[in-house]
């Protein structure tokens, strides 16, 4: 009975879709989704179909992401990208520290978040002033800086886009763009 084809035919499972393809290991394990501490409703981060996701969390770690059967848009389905999004969260190569590359340097160096944030603020203020334009050649009000630009937003939350636009506009930076123009 160890031979799979025999098991398939003799075991009442001629199509090989049932008991004959179940190993002891299979019966001994339980799906991560049933043992998870909680399932959190989310939305797929890739394309704009907006499929519903259920994010399974155990010990404050994401253990699996599956389609949300309750979503009227996707009815539980995810395409390969949405299905792979657990790897997006738990990727080995994911960067979790700040890196800095100095002028002319050949490689990165690690930097702490606080220092890096302060350095960005310094540069933001300096470039803002360097390229500030009060008025145009006819003396009309411009009140802007051409020294700072930004690209990105289509993968971000509405609330994030809102704060980005609000802050940059108040700082006089106008060159704010995202994927919608590409």
């Amino acid at each position: 009975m160890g031979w799979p084809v025999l098991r398939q035919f003799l075991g009442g499972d001629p199509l090989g879709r049932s008991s004959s393809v179940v190993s002891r290991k299979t019966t001994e394990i339980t799906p991560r989704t049933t043992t998870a501490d909680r399932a959190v409703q989310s939305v797929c981060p890739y394309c704009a179909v907006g499929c519903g996701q259920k994010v399974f969390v155990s010990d404050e770690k994401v253990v699996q992401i599956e389609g949300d059967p309750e979503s009227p848009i996707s009815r539980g389905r995810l395409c390969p990208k949405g299905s792979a999004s657990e790897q997006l969260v738990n990727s080995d190569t994911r960067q979790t520290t700040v890196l800095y590359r100095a002028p002319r340097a050949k490689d990165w160096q690690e930097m702490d978040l606080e220092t890096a944030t302060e350095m960005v603020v310094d540069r933001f203020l300096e470039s803002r002033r360097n390229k500030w334009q009060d008025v145009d050649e006819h003396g009309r009000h411009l009140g802007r800086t051409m020294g700072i630009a930004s690209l990105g937003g289509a993968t971000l939350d509405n609330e994030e886009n809102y704060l980005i636009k609000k802050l940059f506009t108040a700082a006089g930076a106008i060159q704010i763009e995202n994927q919608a123009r590409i």
Partner: protein
Amino acid sequence: MANADCIIIQGSNMAEAHPVGFQWVTEAKARGAKVIHVDPRFSRTSAVADKHVPIRAGSDIVLLGALINYVIEHEKWFNDYVVAYTNAASIINEDFRDTEDLDGLFSGFDPETGGYDMSSWSYEPDRAAHSGNPGDPGNDGDAAAEQDGAEESVEAAGDQYGMGGPELDVSKPRRDETLQHPRSVFQILKRHYSRYTPEMVRDVCGISIEDFELLARTVTENSGRERTTCFAYAVGWTQHTVGAQYIRTATILQLLLGNMGRPGGGIMALRGHASIQGSTDIPTLFNLLPGYLPMPTVEKEDLATYLDGIASKKQKGYWANADAYTISLLKAWWGDAATEENDWGYGYLPRLTGPHGTYQTVEGMMAGEVEGYFILGQNPAVGSANGRMQRMGMANLKWLVVRDFQLIESATWWKDGPEIETGELRTEDIETEVFFFPAANHVEKAGTFTQTQRLVQWRHQAVQPPGDAQSELQFFYEVGRRIRARLAGSTDPQDRALLDLTWDYPVDEHGEPDGDAVLQEINGRHLTGPDAGKHLSTFNEMKADGSTEGGCWIYTGVYADGINHAADRETGVADGPAGKEWGWAWPANRRILYNRASADPEGKPWSERKKLVWWDEDEGRWVGNDVPDFPVTLAPGTIPDPEAGGPAALAGDDAFIMQADGKGWLFAPKGMVDGPLPTHYEAQESPVPNVMYAQQHNPTRVTVPRSDNYSKPSAGMPGADVYPFLFTTYRLTEHHTAGGMSRWLPYLSELQPEMFCEVSPELAAERGLEPYDWATIVSPRAAIEAKVLVTERMRPLRIGGADAQTVHQIGLPYHWGVGGDAVVSGDSANDLIGVTLDPNVLIQGSKVGACDIIPGRRPRGTDLLDFVAGYQRRAGLTVDSGNEGVTGTGEDAGPEADPMAPPEMTSARPHPPADGPVVPHDPPGPLGRKPRPRDSQQPSQQPSRQPPATEPRTGRED
């Protein structure tokens, strides 16, 4: 889409690019709907469609124009709908001249600026409705002064308008409901498309007459009272130099067929990023403020002038209340510092002086103007057209901040980019400081995405971000807080806007600001009165007197009654994708826009089968299965007070309530910078001449004539045959745009490991390409290598009628990039693409490029540069190649020619002698940029606001 009787997918490979959304197409098909896929490539979408119609990339307006012509010739238009709800009956100014009269140009073209003065496209006013003193005979003769736009020369510059478009003073045009008046929109439309015939479709698009007729029959048989047809498109329609007009052509067709505002109708834009719709609504775009309000231009010196530019108080519809939306936004941003005395803080807004789009920004980097750059979840080194320009621009920055999950190519080009390999850049010479900040992903923060049907969905936070990873919300909140602290006490007027900014958001123990609080600010609140502090429930509650605040008027209602409706999760899937308690759709949780048009002028559904909202006589209100997109108690027969403006001016049958005249626009009397009617122009690098007009290209397209952005010489010019083939780009199911979220994932990388190119067996034979071997593809800008996939899915097309030529198309996915960190890498298709932009939205034409293809891998190092330069020399490329402006005579040859006709146009770029290389017109400027008038002009960004019944989209993503 699930309710459609016929679905035309064109400019999209929906089954592969939006696979889960495609289940609704499958479902419609299972119920008997016909599905036709029109696309250069046979793909999985084609495989499950009833019919695949191959088309030459860049010729869609001819096909759609021919469908319009077919509908008119065969009298298939939905007359009651067309007369009541579109501007078909409106009469146009007598100075208007069509492309049929001027060989490919409309009246008003200025060859100096390369743009149009739109004043001759305006409506002729209905004198009875417009005359202030009907008895005054002098009034009559002065009609021209009342025509919209006639008071000033209206130079096309769409970046000055938000989604509302320019104001339109003639909201009550003269009408002829028989549609017979020669200057009625209907008759102009009929003449304009009269040469868009099945034969022309065969010769220009490469589609057989039988295939065209099948398509035309299927669409018309499935439109009307009882049936509806839906179109779906993606960037196959937008990434062209006439992209906005592609969508307009489909809109005209859908309006003629009565398919707008009805279940199973419409035009579905399939967008490629989780919240690309949201980032257009609440824009990180240079030309817009939230809710499609325009960013002010330098001419708009005070708030009143700014508001005048958005909407006239005399025009119909909801844009007339733009003052309330704008002042509520200014109150949300500057709180108590926004007062009536200081114009509600309008002076705090920086001013535009022209286009400041992403490609202009790159030029600014090269010029040393832009010093610092933030890249937030995007990968321009791979994902933007002409990748080399992007990387060279970044190499000239002082500092660069990249926020992402992985070390994407845009963060590492300085050590492993293609220019390091060719020796064009040396790491030790690059001065740019680069900061990489790790970002939190979608499960590590709470917030909303807006998906492609305007549905806003809240995501709950599942876990904390790892290490130093932060959300953009936290990062920018922190940067803003520190900037404000540094500037505290500053008396410099330039710092006022930052210091007065409302920037207090509650933060949690990890320093993360509360996204819910930000959403509440976006929704808006009452500031004074008995309801002070209460959330607004609709934008109709917004006031222009400073008593309300709200960060994005079209999102008002998402937090109505103090409840986060984006987080609504009604369970049960029975009611399909229109389930009204799942998330919240802007505006007002409405699922189908302009749904007043689903009922006839009397308010009764056009048919039982296609009913959606209708007038309930007993209740005295609009009711039905969706939130009515109409003033809810405005009865069908209502005739408004002729003096009224705004919503009060809407008649009971003005279904298109956002349009200045309440009608769906077959003809755009204003707003489209390249013409009131879509017209076929060949793509920048088309392999063939334009057989429809002497005008080869869109004359108003934005060219970027630089030596690092050469174009192929136009068809028929010397050197054009050096790049004989057409390439088009597309995406795969398993990858996501430039790969930042997919090429680092082992699963997805294993599924699609390598860059490849799709070629037909005929082309493979012609060029000696072997399956699974390498090929090198060279364009006027760059050369890349890819594995060869020989497939009959790519079909050579015969183009050009009597002396037809074979056009070979090459398909290229664009997900790979050169770098050292991803699981899979490869050459980037975007490096091949040039930057030439649509004048309406400044999106690049990247669906049609010219190339050659040869077997084998590309050269390495400096040999690669020599290889590309060799092709450029053979083709005689200069910065002028392919960048001609007017190529016809532009003369009014028609019998109606009269002295009042626009001045004769002369060719801006005379054809060069046939035997020599193209000689540069002017020497290139310091940046290789020739100071061409068009570039100092103000091309424009404007969302596709004219297509009356689609969602507003600004640019179109990939």
